[in-house]
């Protein structure tokens, strides 16, 4: 039982009309881990998560969540997982306390008053408990939403882009909380398109246009991309000129400027090296080899997927 993954889906398909949003995706989410779910906007992340918590019915494929059959044991699944929606979906016209009491009531938590008191205290919102939830800032709303969906101590937590529109400090605190929950034995699946967040996950799945493109640890995913990366450094004009020259040269797949440096990424290491050396000499920029980042790998996956679509 404990070795069985928290989520296992096989060949999952979801269509909206004639648009296939999730296209035969198979993946596991291991127990006790934080699994990142990555992909560009519109890649099907939210749809996948909704299928996994029973909010959408799949058009094909099978799956189990916490050992329960997807599409059959929906109500059991709902009562044992926590799901935090992308958009704030608690009631803005209820106070913080009333919202928490509502959620606690639906999960049948007792004694209600004490449970809510504890959560409020844990959040540090006891003094503001009678404020309307709509009056909270984005960061507080997000913390409150997280508190609301872990109140009933679910074994599995699904988070759909939880940190969208939240400042860096709040994001860091949020991730600390997630690691804390995972350390307590909770399995977490979190969708994001922030690379620094992906790097905080034990395991990542990359989905693009409804297809699973890569999965593994961060290192495995980077290695899987099979990319070589060079760094060109110099004054701004030189770097800009170098980027313009590199475009379309043999071996060059992607270029990405970072201030006064330029990441040049390619699959064919030898050809890439020739091109970069040539450009470095021409523009007078310094060249060095560097490690491929997760972002480089994902940008590559994205453009490859786009090429496949075309």
């Amino acid at each position, binding site marked *: 039982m404990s070795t069985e993954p928290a989520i296992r889906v096989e060949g999952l398909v979801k269509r909206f009309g004639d648009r296939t949003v999730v296209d035969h995706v198979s993946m596991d989410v291991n127990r006790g881990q934080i699994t990142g779910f990555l992909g560009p906007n519109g890649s099907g992340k939210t749809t996948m998560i909704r299928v996994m918590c029973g909010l959408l019915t799949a058009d094909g494929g099978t799956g189990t969540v916490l050992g329960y059959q997807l599409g059959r044991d929906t109500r059991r699944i709902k009562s044992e997982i926590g799901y935090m929606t992308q958009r704030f979906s608690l009631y803005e016209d209820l106070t913080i306390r009333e919202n928490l*009491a*509502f959620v606690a009531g*639906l999960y049948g938590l007792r004694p209600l008053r004490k449970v809510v008191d504890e959560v409020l205290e844990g959040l540090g919102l006891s003094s503001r408990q009678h404020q309307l939830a709509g009056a909270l800032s984005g960061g507080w709303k997000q913390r409150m939403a997280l508190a609301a969906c872990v109140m009933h101590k679910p074994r599995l937590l699904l988070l759909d882009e939880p940190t969208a529109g939240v400042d860096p400090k709040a994001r860091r605190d949020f991730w600390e909380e997630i690691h804390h929950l995972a350390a307590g034995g909770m399995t977490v699946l979190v969708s994001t398109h922030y690379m620094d967040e992906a790097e905080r996950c034990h395991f990542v799945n990359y989905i693009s246009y409804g297809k699973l493109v890569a999965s593994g640890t961060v290192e495995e995913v980077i290695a899987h991309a099979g990319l070589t990366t060079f760094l060109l450094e110099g004054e701004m004009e030189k770097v800009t000129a170098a980027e313009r020259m590199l475009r379309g040269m043999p071996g060059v797949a992607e270029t990405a400027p970072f201030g006064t440096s330029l990441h040049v990424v390619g699959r064919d290491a030898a050809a890439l090296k020739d091109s970069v050396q040539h450009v470095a000499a021409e523009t007078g920029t310094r060249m060095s080899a560097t490690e491929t980042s997760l972002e480089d790998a994902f940008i590559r996956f994205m453009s490859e997927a786009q090429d496949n679509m075309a």
Partner: protein
Amino acid sequence: MSWFSLRRLRALLRKEVIQMRRDRITFAMMIGVPLMQLLLFGFAINNDPKDLPAALVAPTQDRYSRAIVTALEMTGYYRFDHITSSAAEAEALIERGAVSFVVTIPSDFDRRIDKGDNPQILIEADATDPAVASGAISTLGQVASEALLHESGQEAEAADAARSQLEVVVHRRYNPEGVTQYNIVPGLLGVILQMTMVMMTSMALTREVERGTMENLLAMPATGLEIMLGKILPYLGVGAVQVALVLSAAKALFGVPFVGSLWLLLTGVFIFVLSLVLLGYTISTAARTQMQAMQLTFFFFLPSLLLSGFMFPYRGMPVWAQVLGELFPLTHFLRMIRAVMLKGADLTNVSAPMAALVVFVLAYAGIALTRFRRTLD
């Protein structure tokens, strides 16, 4: 996990009541709208207008004409503002709307009566609004012939005596004075309830969808039945307040008689309100936005107002319209409340409309529960 849990229902109910209370404008409307409608409609609508301006064209002012005029005025419908001998002048009066009726008594009227011929009177009514004239016309023939009967008695003295004690009898059962309010006010209760109950509940789910809270609600372990009950039950409370308000006003302001059993009436009202909130909830399972819910509600309102017998007499409609009218809870409610309040009907007399209302409750609940989308598909 069970299909129904009181604890979950309590959480849903508490949330709905708080939200309802906090939405001040809507809450004020739920109490204010009924009061306003009741006062406006109760005092303004009159299907049986009286004291209508009329013109009399009588070339000869004989005793028969005078008797008829007196008798007509005594019905309360006619007020002879203009007495003239010129048909053209009367024609002009009715044309510009100064009078609703022109009563023409021909010059050979008394001679024909004395000879025993069939005398004729011409009544021209401004029928642009048929409702205005109908009551007045309906009494006319009877009144006139009675007046003449008295007046053409053999002896002159007897005729004079008869004229002084001329009595006009208009017989209307259940509403002896023909007071429109007796009919309108109980009907208004139905219309007001229908308006507020259906509209409020029709937005129950669409509001959650539009505010984005539906996703979270569905992700939590609440069943369709619990969500439905949580949404509709608070409105039964609002309905109870409206019922108390309208019934008290009916008694205190309009003096509507109340001859039947209060408990029977309240039972009927309860079933009716239940059918309304369920109908509203059904609409909200079908609509995707609050706007659509509103449109669907109005799509339902108009025919139910027109075909239920609230605005126009049910029996006056063609058969197909009557059949359509049967499809609205309001139709059955009107039959029930008028029978109980005005006629003192007991359960056996109103079992048919009561049963119809129960059918609506079951049908709407069934449709709503099967239509309710447990997923976001």
